[in-house]
């Protein structure tokens, strides 16, 4: 994992409150798993049908019946339950998951999210992302601020097919932490060593910055 990714995860770990139910999307968000200590009373939901999962310890053999939605062999913690896919998504649609972390191809000023399809290039199906994005109480996006060609991923308007409309609460990238507000994107924290103008340069969306309240991470 890159230093940028580690910074994103370390910052994201502060979003989780003991006692919450949390869902971790495939890819980078799954790694947040390792930032939630065993003694923390948090239940991680995986939409394939488990509430209360944790990474396997180094000395634990895989249980062939127990994976997370990304396909990794995992373990459970005390208080865990397992259930079928209808129950799992009922939990999601009834907003019983407190916070979910997801990756993104694009996010925009309205909180629209695109993270499942690149027409003509990538369309394996949306999996559980749509229900999670639309219904979970708080959706936090973890992604690189720019794609590998340097193009901004934080846009004025998403151009790819949407996962869900107006669903994102907060975006955490290697460069900034931004909240989606009725007035657009508000920068909460900015990466150590980065200037506001450098951040704006790397972003297509309009950014509201209150320098007096700006945090560093």
């Amino acid at each position, binding site marked *: 994992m890159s230093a940028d990714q580690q910074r994103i995860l370390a910052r994201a770990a502060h979003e989780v*409150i003991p*006692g919450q139910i949390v869902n971790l999307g495939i890819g980078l968000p799954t790694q947040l798993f390792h930032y939630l200590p065993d003694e923390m009373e948090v*239940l991680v939901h995986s939409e394939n049908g488990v*509430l209360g999962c944790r990474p396997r310890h180094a000395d634990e053999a895989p249980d062939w019946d127990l994976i997370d939605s990304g396909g990794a062999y995992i373990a459970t913690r005390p*208080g*865990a*339950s397992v259930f079928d896919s209808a129950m799992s998504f009922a*939990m999601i649609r009834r907003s019983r998951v407190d916070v979910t972390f997801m990756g993104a191809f694009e996010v925009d000023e309205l909180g629209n999210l695109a993270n499942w399809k690149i027409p003509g290039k990538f369309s394996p199906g949306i999996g559980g992302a749509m229900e999670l994005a639309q219904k979970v109480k708080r959706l936090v996006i973890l992604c690189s601020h720019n794609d590998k060609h340097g193009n901004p991923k934080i846009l004025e308007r998403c151009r790819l097919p949407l996962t869900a409309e107006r669903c994102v609460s907060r975006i955490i990238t290697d460069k900034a932490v931004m909240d989606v507000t009725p007035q657009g994107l508000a920068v909460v924290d900015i990466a150590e060593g980065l200037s506001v103008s450098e951040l704006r340069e790397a972003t297509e969306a309009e950014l509201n910055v209150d320098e007096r309240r700006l945090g560093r991470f």
Partner: protein
Amino acid sequence: MTLLNHKHRLIEEAVAAIPHGASIMVGGFGSPGTPFALIDELLAQGQHDLTLIKNDANEPGIGVGKLIAAGRVRRLITSHIGLNRDAIAAMNRGELEVELFPQGLLAEKIRSAGAGHHGFLTDIGQGTEVASGRREIEMDGRIWGIEQALYADFALVHAEHADRYGNLIYRATASNFNPLMAMAADTVIAQAYRVDEPGSLLPEAIHTPCAFVSQVVEVARDTSEQGRRAHVG
């Protein structure tokens, strides 16, 4: 939603969250699964103008029968009240509004809410008076009735065994409407004969995952009608 680590409560505290005029789902088919202790606490606290959603009206003098006799219930959404002559009399006097649904449709209306839907399409009741007044839709060459999801402010449920996160296990025919109601109400108060530490329940054996349960209270097995029934068939 209450945090996982703050769900285990005293019964007085849990029930005090219910205001006058609330809509309340109550588990149970006959006595099994009826949360008698929670109902008695509601009776003691005095909430009124309630809308109850329950399969039946229990029997005179027990469970929701007490709430109905005390005039606390404005409206009852149910499938069958044949075992409670007081409820039938109150209905006939116009003191209790009663809305009746076939039992399986009532269960599915609640389940539809629990799954976060707005309703479902059914052929049950087509050609009978149940379908009169129900909105219909033509699809694939047939007429289907649209049954709307039934949500509620609160659910009172009874479980055999719980943990303090609110995971629930039901027993025998005391399950009935309880797991459905636990998903359909905004705030879910569960009573259980035992509330143990997380990890006490086998993950596969849990019927209602804690995500749906707001508060869990421990009740004694011989409290109220829980262990000594008026009606023994």
